[in-house]
């Protein structure tokens, strides 16, 4: 059974539609800047990839805005686009329309603001819990679009969106749904969250006055990731019914693999990454030498980018040098639970257009990062099959394989 992508939607620091995002990505537009959403002067990392000019009033009533966290608002915005792009889902019975969404932190903006109020003995918004819960975004998407089948949320930190898309694939293959709205959403450019990642020494702190150069996957001098926010949603359905209802098919979601390091909560592990990529490739029924492009996890941490490079080398051997790799995070920062969904849209757009977006800020690569990362300018190449990686705290490793519809 072939599962295909028939709708896409996105809101990101470099664009709030697929076309806007993709045009910006191809041109290497940088979405990183000083944090605007709160006073970050007491933080060591004072930069982020924020979504600009997002007005929830464009899609939600005042009452709905009061009842939703920003991560839900971003998710709904991207889901609306994706469902419209798919031509609507009325072809399917409401109970056969499912949601599978990923978020690492859920409604943490609400959590942080309500916690601050409570600690000052002030009353807290009555919707604190339903806004904060990680499945809030999935529930709102279902409510707005009458998606009455399974409604799942996956929280595996930075790989949440990847796992969610994989769970959507599994649901369709198992016959438990006819259409799945899937992806990831995150909005945690927040004082406590930034401080938490700072405490782990995971964030870039050396580029506060030079924000545009801070997110620099695979480059010399990188010093950690830059927080980002956004959401990306795909509509998945079975190829035969998609054709029958006349849907546009953007790509096939051919494979999904996941593996846990079961070794360390936050340190990356080559074996786990190789296992996830291998499982996804096997699941797609192809061999490693079929992979033309990898949308890398590549967060710009000193260790992570080297480990991912080594994992790619270990799995693909000599073929690793033929693969074009790029890091979307170089332009938008790390959008945590949304990152794999955004990376999936980049991978699908690469298959559709024959263009790979660049990894920006890659004037000089780390000697240990020695593959072709499409440095600084877009790369044109006919591509048939792409891999999207996502690795998360908890030792989670996820890979997705997308291929052209006719491959």
């Amino acid at each position, binding site marked *: 059974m072939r599962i295909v992508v028939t709708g896409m939607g996105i809101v990101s620091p470099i664009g709030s539609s697929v076309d806007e995002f993709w045009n910006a990505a191809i041109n290497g537009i940088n979405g990183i800047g000083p944090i605007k959403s709160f006073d970050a002067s007491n933080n060591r990392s004072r930069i982020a990839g924020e979504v600009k000019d997002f007005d929830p009033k464009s899609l939600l*009533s*005042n*009452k709905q805005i*009061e*009842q939703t966290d920003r991560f839900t608002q971003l998710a709904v915005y991207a889901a609306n686009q994706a469902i419209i792009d798919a031509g609507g889902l009325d072809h399917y019975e409401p109970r056969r329309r499912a949601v599978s969404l990923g978020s690492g932190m859920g409604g943490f903006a609400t959590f942080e603001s309500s916690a601050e109020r409570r600690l000052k003995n002030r*009353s807290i*918004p*009555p*919707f604190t819990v339903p806004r904060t819960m990680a499945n809030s975004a999935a529930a709102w998407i279902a409510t707005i679009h009458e998606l009455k089948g399974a409604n799942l949320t996956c929280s595996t930190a930075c790989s949440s969106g990847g796992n969610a898309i994989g769970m959507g694939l599994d649901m369709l293959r198992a016959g438990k749904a006819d259409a799945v709205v899937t992806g990831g959403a995150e909005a945690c450019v927040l004082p406590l969250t930034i401080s938490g990642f700072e405490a782990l020494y995971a964030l870039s702190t050396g580029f506060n006055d030079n924000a545009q150069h801070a997110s620099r996957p695979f480059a010399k001098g990188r010093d950690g990731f830059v927080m980002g926010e956004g959401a990306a949603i795909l509509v998945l359905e079975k190829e035969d019914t998609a054709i029958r209802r006349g849907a546009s098919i953007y790509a096939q979601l051919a494979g999904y693999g996941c593996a846990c390091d079961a070794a360390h909560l936050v340190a990356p592990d080559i074996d786990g990454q190789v296992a996830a990529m291998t499982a996804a490739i096997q699941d797609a029924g192809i061999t490693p030498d079929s992979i033309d492009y990898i949308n890398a996890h590549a967060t710009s941490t000193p260790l992570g980018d080297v480990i991912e490079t080594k994992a790619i080398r270990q799995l693909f051997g000599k073929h690793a040098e033929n693969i074009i790799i790029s890091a979307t995070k170089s332009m938008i920062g790390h959008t945590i639970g949304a990152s794999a969904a955004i990376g999936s849209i980049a991978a699908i757009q690469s298959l559709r257009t024959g263009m790979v977006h660049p990894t920006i800020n890659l004037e000089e690569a780390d000697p240990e990062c020695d593959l072709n990362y499409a440095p600084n300018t877009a790369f044109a190449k006919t591509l048939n099959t792409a891999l999207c990686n996502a690795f998360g705290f908890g030792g989670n490793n996820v890979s997705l394989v997308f291929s052209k519809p006719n491959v």
Partner: protein
Amino acid sequence: MNTENIEAKVIEFIASKVEEVDASTITAESEFEALGLDSMDRVQLLFDAEETFGVTFKDDEVKSFHCVKDIIDYISNHQPVSSAKN
């Protein structure tokens, strides 16, 4: 601020929160149910009223609130409205 001003402010506030109802039809006697406010909506409304008028509603007292006048009376009796935020 006198009671009439408080009433006008509270009705204006309620009108801004109840998008489905014609604002010109809202009076002090309007009941929450008639305004389409379910139990969660009422809790949200009172939370927003606390923020707007600088009062703190006591849980056991708001349980009996059923119309706009209950909010007007509470604010009149409990808080100098000079501290209201709008």
